[in-house]
């Protein structure tokens, strides 16, 4: 007998004698948040500390405002200090590396320019990215974030053409239990924007 997923309704291979063993994997969905065209903030709260690592996969677009791209601001645990970030990027054909830091002070969030397409960008296009947070539940390490993301518009003049490898530091040894990603100019995330949070056992 095939097994029907309660979540998706799809059928998969049966656990019948003679079939291959079905192993549960170590990569699990925790939550998915979608844009609604009116809210500028994506929030993941009550993140369990039972995984080893976290990963966020996203597609993102600004709902209104008429920009060529949208910038995100990333915070953990509702905290508004102890952040810094660096990037290796190619923007509209120009490759560069830069930092966003106020040493010896700190920034109030991890800045993520070009996290998504702007509302003026080519219709129906979204920025895409993956973010990895290693040892997010550690109580002895600061949290270092690594993200790879980009935007493209198939030649459209109002789209930013961009790809980045960005790092961010949250200099706090508290386990991460919540994550917020807010647009920098208070414009909303467009419908179709999706941020999916996964836990990885280890």
């Amino acid at each position, binding site marked *: 007998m095939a097994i029907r997923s309660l979540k998706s309704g799809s059928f*998969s*291979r049966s656990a019948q004698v003679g079939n291959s063993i079905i*192993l549960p*994997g*170590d*990569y699990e969905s925790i939550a998915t948040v979608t844009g609604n065209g009116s809210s500028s903030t994506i929030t993941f709260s009550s993140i369990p500390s039972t995984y*080893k*690592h976290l990963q966020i996969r996203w597609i993102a677009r600004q709902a209104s405002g008429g920009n060529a791209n949208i910038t995100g601001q990333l915070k953990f645990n509702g905290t508004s200090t102890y952040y*810094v*970030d*660096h*990037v*290796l*990027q190619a923007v509209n054909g120009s*490759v*560069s*590396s*830069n*930092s966003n*830091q106020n*040493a*010896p002070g*700190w920034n109030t969030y991890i800045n993520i320019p070009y996290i998504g397409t702007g509302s003026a960008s080519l219709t129906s296009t979204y920025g895409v990215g993956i973010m*990895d*947070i*290693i*040892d997010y539940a*550690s109580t*002895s*390490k*600061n949290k*270092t*974030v*690594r993200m*790879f993301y980009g935007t493209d518009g198939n030649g459209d003049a109002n789209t930013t053409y961009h790809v980045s*490898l*960005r*790092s*961010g*530091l949250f*200099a706090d*040894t508290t386990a991460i239990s919540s994550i917020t990603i807010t647009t920098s100019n208070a414009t909303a995330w467009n419908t179709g924007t999706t941020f999916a949070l996964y836990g*990885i*056992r*280890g």
Partner: protein
Amino acid sequence: MALQLFKIASVEVATPQTSIDFTSIPQGYTDLLVKISIRSTDANINDGANFYFNSDTTGANYSFKRIYGNGATTTSDTSSASYRWFFVNGNTATTNTMGNAELYIPNYTGSSYKSGYVDFVIENNATTGYDGLVAGIWLSTSAITALSIASGGNYFMAGSTATLYGVL
């Protein structure tokens, strides 16, 4: 079946050591993935670190192409004789902060030379921080049964971790 990860082994350094080693890697997966969080005793912001496979430490059997930034400038370099593919945090970077890196090796049991890619970041509360991408090759047709992450002459500090996953 959808792509899925399966933990093979996880290592956390308890006292400073020169390498993290995975041995007896099962051969039943499609690809390998390693998630890495390391800080070394090197008295710099960053420290070069090595990947080598099946205990092969002959530099001539490895090569890589890499691009990285240091917060101000970008560098593209290559080597035809090195397994020192990536950076980890050194001990002058911001306290309690470790590098964040990932190594992906497709078809690790195949009979072709083994290719891998790495993306790594080094955070630090100053202008200097590193973000880099690497494509590397191990010039061997052997299946990978062991994988080492080794310091370039220093020690990985306590709390450094690496988790090896099989990908199906």
